[in-house]
């Protein structure tokens, strides 16, 4: 990975993380208040995020032949099968239990919420178990 790409990736992550913090998504209580229908904020966060992403994914490949630092424009791999269904259903259960999903679990650490290390550990172990089972 070139230094320029590394720095651009770091910067993009920082804008993402700043957004997660600003929107309150790094607070599990705010996410749970959405899921318990007390505050619709999360829908605005997701809506805002999707609109910007949609514009970028649609327009950039038309305006540019390749990304500014080289390479090719990728695509989110998306299949619908039993694993996607079961995985998404399980993911929702874990998310609903805690109000914590992968991005905010990581970003929350930057705002000093070190209790979220338990969630980071849990997600990492869950990903480990999934990969381990996939090999069997």
């Amino acid at each position, binding site marked *: 990975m070139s230094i320029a790409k590394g720095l651009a990736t770091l910067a993009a992550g920082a804008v993402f993380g700043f957004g997660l*913090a600003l929107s*309150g998504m790094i607070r599990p209580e705010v996410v749970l208040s959405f899921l318990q229908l*007390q505050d619709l904020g999360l829908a605005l966060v997701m809506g805002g995020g999707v609109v910007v992403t949609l514009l970028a994914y649609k327009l950039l490949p038309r305006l540019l032949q390749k*990304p500014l630092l080289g390479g090719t424009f990728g695509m989110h791999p998306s299949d619908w099968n039993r*694993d996607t269904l079961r995985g998404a259903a399980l993911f929702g259960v874990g998310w609903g239990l805690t109000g914590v999903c992968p991005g905010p679990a990581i970003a929350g650490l930057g*705002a000093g919420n070190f209790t979220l290390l338990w969630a980071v550990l849990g997600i990492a172990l869950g990903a480990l178990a999934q990969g381990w089972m996939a090999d069997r």
Partner: protein
Amino acid sequence: MAVMDILQTPFPLGWQHYLLGGLCVGAGVALLFLFTGRIGGMSSVFSSTWSFALRRPFFQQARLVDSRGWRLAYALGLIGGALAWWLWRGGGVPESTDVPWWLLLVGGFIAGYGARLGHGCTSGHGICGLGSLQWPSALAVLTFMATAFLTANLVTRWIA
């Protein structure tokens, strides 16, 4: 009653920071795409990072090994961005949560397992998948929203 409340006061804490925060999240994903062409979901880093330590075939797949460096950089950026927000608006008080550690561990495990099995989380399917108009991602989002909604409401009944 909750349904009545939410119709009258959909955003008890205000709505601007939600929208601005969401636009920033999208801008982060867009910048990553603009500079590198990469698709910036967040759950893959939890699989790809294991490839540094584990020799098992699953973790040595090219898609994990080849992306493990930038995914870690992206995750590090996430922490830095949240730190910047905290220095600006945190008021010197670290963020905290009342969700107990064991629930974070157990719920995290289920969410991590599910996100990797289903190839995406709230950012992978929710932001990147919907942002590329993929119907499987839309179905995944509907699925995890439904189970999360059910779970969160049952947990309040049982625990609180």
